[in-house]
């Protein structure tokens, strides 16, 4: 799976399941955590989705804006864990 495909899958998941706004497009560089778009509870849901879908574990201590704050950063983290 390419980085673009991962970003697209994540974007769809966040828009549909977390924000409940299926029509919303989330930019690859849009801040997710620091902007408050995703709260701490939804962040855990996203981490569980990443584990189930991509087989890449994100530790509890990594669920913060310092580790990733955009779809590009998250996709890159997933790629590095899958490598």
């Amino acid at each position, binding site marked *: 799976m390419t980085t673009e495909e991962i970003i697209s899958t994540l974007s769809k998941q966040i828009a549909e399941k977390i924000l409940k706004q299926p*029509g*919303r497009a989330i930019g690859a560089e849009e801040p997710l955590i620091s902007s*408050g778009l995703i*709260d701490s*509870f939804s962040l*855990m849901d996203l981490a*569980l989705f990443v584990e189930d879908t991509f087989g890449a574990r994100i530790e*509890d*201590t990594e*669920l913060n804006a310092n580790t990733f704050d955009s779809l590009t950063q998250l996709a890159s983290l997933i790629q590095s864990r899958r490598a």
Partner: protein
Amino acid sequence: MTFLHLGVFALAAIGIGRLKVGRELALLAFSVFVLFWLQPAQPFVSLRFWIPFATLAIIALVWALTAPPEARAMKKNWPTALVIFGVILLIDLNQFFRLDAIYMTATPRLWMLALAWLVFFSVGLALWRVRQTSTLAALVALGILFIFIYLKTPALVVKSFIWMDSLRGVAPATRPLFSWLGFSYIAFRLLHTIRDFQARRLPALTLSEYVNYAIFFPAFVAGPIDRAERFVVELRTPVALAEQDWAEAARRFIIGLFKKFVVADSLAVISINTIFVEQVHSPAWLWLFLYLYALRIYFDFSAYSDIAIGLARVMGIRLPENFAAPYFKPNLTQFWNAWHITLTQWFRAYFFNPLTRALRTKQISIPAIIFVTQLGTMMLIGLWHGVALNFLCWGIWHGLGLFVQNRWSEWARTKIQTPLTPRRKLLADALGMFLTFNFVSLGWLFFTLPTPALALNAMSKLFGFN
């Protein structure tokens, strides 16, 4: 901390930052000295010496139980042990130097220090041979938590000293309250390393790196609570200082001094307190005093972070930010992403996230999980400030606020499918900011007033119910 302390800190930071050789050990030596220097008056004079001694002993113990064999090699650590031993010995020798402007002269006799070292090394040697296990680490973590809870419960502290007086057969004396300076922050740094050791995530740290992390002098009294793996990278390879970095470090330090000694200390005399609540009947004045308290606590607390960040930067270490304009946030979730950030992240990493992860795999409704995890986290954050009913109420206030805001956001998101126009977004954010600031300000009543009853009385007065 006084101006004198901070002035010496600044000079030390500049000196240590410029060192090309021995920088880490110099930082260690100064941090150990500061640990002793800043200790306040204690119920027993000698505790002013033994408390920092015990702090170092606990840190060394946790290091020994969590460091991998390659980091525990004697050749890597003997200079560190020598530096710590040397600084403590010099401090103890103040009974002969008699520099009472720097530290008390009533330090323990040399034979007592020798005995303490003997006990420490005997315990250390015994532990050295013990296999490092997750269970042993958990027991040590429990011990640290036990001390933490004891220190945060003033009634327990007072009772324990009355009990000690009765054992000695003397009448209870009026003494300064026992306090363990910086333990709240040191304990949370140690607990983080213990937990990461159990999860096999802790990097290999030498004794010098570990002690420097735990008692890094700019941050040991009031944070931020950095993470060991992040801190040690810049301790080993300091970030080079360009001209603008010096300017930025100086700016943060000076802003911190101004916020603390000019703004916060001035606001302290006109902020809401028990006397104002009892004697002022005008809701307008009470709102003003409440808002001033909200500003005071922000300026006071964030000032220490500014000072710490500025001092650390001079030494090539970038501490994490602890405040990010919290009163300008449009909702409570974002407020908590911007207030005492490193403490909140600690609780998220080691309580909220593991609990949420565990509950998400069970058949429990999402609102119930959010309620339990948010309320539990905020109650613990409240109790971190002190084991007292008012701090617990403050935590519950915020926990309930976060839950209500979460449910509202969930509902609003399903109703509003198209993004707001810029004008409407601005209006919504302004309204959110106003509501959030007022909610947080009202919560400060529980935080600053000694009893929840007084806080509720103040709230009723604020809304005109006298």
